[in-house]
């Protein structure tokens, strides 16, 4: 029976890719484990292996083709004892025998049916995507030329610029150097700065977080990458007990200018142990600065500020945002102030406060609401500690209604903190109770449908806004 080879998904977030190169040709015999093709994703070039034995029939997608959707049939493999040429085309010549045309007929039919039944599972994180453009940041001087950049490249550029500027800055973490970063954020740094400043560690989070903290105490400017912040829990003692408290305990003598950075929050279907937002955890600790940017400009401007800061900074990125493209100001030295929120969209009827990936959802919700006659203001906190409560309260004074949107657990969250601030300091301006829109209060499930139910989405923000505006 002819086997259809389909364009594979080679990462949790891949939807399409480039068929870079065929390593087999029509008529080749292949065994399971043989490499059939090279496929390029946005992150890497991957090898596509055969799991079946057989003869390569038709190659249906030419090498070099870009944007091949996952699931597209890219080649036909004839099984053992079959005629590979039989799978070439329906118009097989008559003298090929009776069986061949039947097989050919069978092929596409079988291919079609699974296409309906076996639909790839959609991740709940697909709902976290947003295409909405953001308002201009007043911190960026008027008339600045804008280019576009992914968040991934913006973060890399921030590190590279700071490393050029200050020889004390170095980057350390798992797979940051030779592998070019587990999520390719440190791509190219090893080539430019060499192995004394771009350092691969063993899998020893507690150890290298401690070494980084000690190096900062000793006068260097470490940027410590955690492959994800889930793994930083192995190292959290150093972040909190060693880094955050040193300045205070030493009466201001001993500083700890370190940046702990890496992806935070839910990724795509990686389950409970790899999907958590640690923003509220770190924001709870005096002595730390906690930053969680959304777009490329903030990612770059705030990471540069974090590296220059005299204080320990926890810099929370988001894997699902790394590949998104935003406008980025073309400035020689784009540094943004820490502790300042940003109005992403102006509005007068209701305020939606968010940060990190939630900002995109809030903007999307605001678009939907605009269509229904509700004018929402969207605020990106950008820094979680110190929190820019003036910006939140000023917006509340204008709109009198507030919703907090947060991709994270609801209990003891940043949303809870914002609610408390509004109660304590903005009570007279409230026309409705503050509403929190967060993930469901459960560990993140793996199953696609449950993940979708567990995660925040724009629809839930819209509902909450309608609640506080009594619509």
């Amino acid at each position, binding site marked *: 029976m002819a086997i259809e080879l*389909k364009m*594979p*998904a*080679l*990462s*949790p977030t*891949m939807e399409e890719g480039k068929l870079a190169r065929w390593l087999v040709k029509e008529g080749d015999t292949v065994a*399971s*484990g043989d*490499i059939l093709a090279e496929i390029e994703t946005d*992150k*890497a*070039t*991957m*090898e*596509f*292996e055969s*799991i079946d034995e057989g003869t390569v029939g038709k190659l249906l997608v030419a090498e070099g083709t870009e944007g091949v959707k*996952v*699931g597209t049939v890219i080649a036909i493999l004839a099984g053992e004892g079959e005629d590979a040429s039989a799978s070439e085309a329906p118009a097989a010549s008559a003298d090929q025998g009776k069986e061949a045309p039947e097989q050919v007929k069978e092929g596409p039919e079988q291919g079609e049916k699974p296409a309906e*039944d*076996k639909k*790839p*599972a959609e*991740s709940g994180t697909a709902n976290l995507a947003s295409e909405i453009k953001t308002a201009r940041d007043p911190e960026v001087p008027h008339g600045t030329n804008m280019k576009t950049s992914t968040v991934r490249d913006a973060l890399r550029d921030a590190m590279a610029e700071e490393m050029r500027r200050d020889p004390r800055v170095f980057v350390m973490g*798992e*797979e940051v150097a*030779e*592998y070019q970063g*587990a999520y390719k954020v440190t791509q190219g740094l090893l080539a430019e700065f060499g192995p004394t400043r771009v350092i*691969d*560690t*063993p*899998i*020893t989070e*507690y*150890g290298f977080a401690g070494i980084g903290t000690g190096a900062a105490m000793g006068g260097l400017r470490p940027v410590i990458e955690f492959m994800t912040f*889930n*793994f930083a*829990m*192995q190292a959290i003692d150093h972040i909190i007990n060693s880094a955050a408290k040193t300045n205070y305990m030493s009466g201001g003598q001993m500083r700890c200018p370190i940046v702990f950075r890496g992806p935070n929050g839910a*990724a*795509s*279907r*990686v*389950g*409970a*142990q*790899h999907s958590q937002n640690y923003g509220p955890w770190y924001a709870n600790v005096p002595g730390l600065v906690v930053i969680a940017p959304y777009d490329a400009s903030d990612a770059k401007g705030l990471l540069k500020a974090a590296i220059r800061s005299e204080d320990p900074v926890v810099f929370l990125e988001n894997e699902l945002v790394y590949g998104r493209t935003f406008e980025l100001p073309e400035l020689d030295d784009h540094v943004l102030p820490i502790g300042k929120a940003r109005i992403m969209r102006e509005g007068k009827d209701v305020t939606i406060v968010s940060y990190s990936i939630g900002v995109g959802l809030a903007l999307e919700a605001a678009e939907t609401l605009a269509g229904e006659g509700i004018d929402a203001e969207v605020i990106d906190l950008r820094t979680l500690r110190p929190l820019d409560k003036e910006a939140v309260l000023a917006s509340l004074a204008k709109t009198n209604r507030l919703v907090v949107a947060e991709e994270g657990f609801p209990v003891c969250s940043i949303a809870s903190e914002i609610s408390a601030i509004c109660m304590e300091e903005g009570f007279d301006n409230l026309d409705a109770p503050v509403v929190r829109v967060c993930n*469901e*209060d*459960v*560990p993140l*499930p*793996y*199953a*696609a*449908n*449950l993940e979708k*139910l567990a995660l925040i989405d724009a629809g839930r923000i819209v509902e909450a806004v309608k609640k506080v505006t009594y619509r």
Partner: protein
Amino acid sequence: MPKAKNDAPVAETAAVADENFALHSLQEALEADRRYTANKEELLHLYEQMLLIRRFEEKAGQLYGLGLIGGFCHLYIGQEAVAVGLQSALDSAKDSVITGYRDHGHMLAYGIDPKVIMAELTGREAGISKGKGGSMHMFSVEHRFYGGHGIVGAQVSLGAGLAFAHKYREDGGVAMAYFGDGAANQGQVYESFNMASLWKLPIIFVIENNQYAMGTAVSRSSAETHFHRRGTGFRIPGMQVDGMDLLEVRKAAEIALEHVRGGNGPVLMELNTYRYRGHSMSDPAKYRSREEVQGVRDKRDPIEHAKAELMEMGVTEESLKEIDKRVRAQVAVSADFAESSPEPNPTELYTDVLVESY
């Protein structure tokens, strides 16, 4: 010849000074008689188990490519002899097993139904964790398989805890805790070594040295790359085993189990093995050459090795093909089951967070 044997240490003279320090006795016992003697039926059974893991993992890789499996998916292809060789020596009525996120093979080697494993990979109601765990988080208390853990190194301390429970309850069980050459550098591993040895806990620490911690070769991450020596400072005897040779693995397991069941405390085994695929599905594996992988496939493959031995014993090519057909059919049934099972009921989102209501 496996590379590990070629550069095996000759003697560790520093430790020999202490006569009572029996760190090498197990290694010596293994070197004196390296391979387990399996009869034809036994070897056929173990061969089929390895083949099941290989075909299951190939299918899982394919389902991932079709988008039916999401997130991270770490395949065990190449390492089959380790789980099968070790676990076949365990007493499944009382011993316990724990491992990291590359866990499909250990579950299959313990006889857990491939259907419920595959259904967990596709996130369905019939999955062994009701679809809530996924590839990295699978458990079977019934089989004394305690996971399936996503955080590198965590399972080592947890395994020592399982051993603590065996000793506390005096149930005669031994815990087997698997971890990789990458996890071997986590600090908690050594904290656990110390307590396990101090308290003579019945545990076998198994380092599956597949040569790469994600993209980092052992020589770039480890000051001491002979991992079996790493228990020395805690007086834990070490063994260095060819993890690509099923019968050597089995023999080493028997020697280690005898020592641990005798109340002598933990054993540290280093199994030299190799993973053919990337660290996870999204790893392009540029840190090693295609030739290196192909070389291991051609020369050291544990399944091909067992197959050759079976043929020497007189098993025919046809009967081996029959086994392959049977295994492929079993895997196909699992995949169909995993694709056709319904997704979990939405109400499952809120179940199992806590056991009791408050």
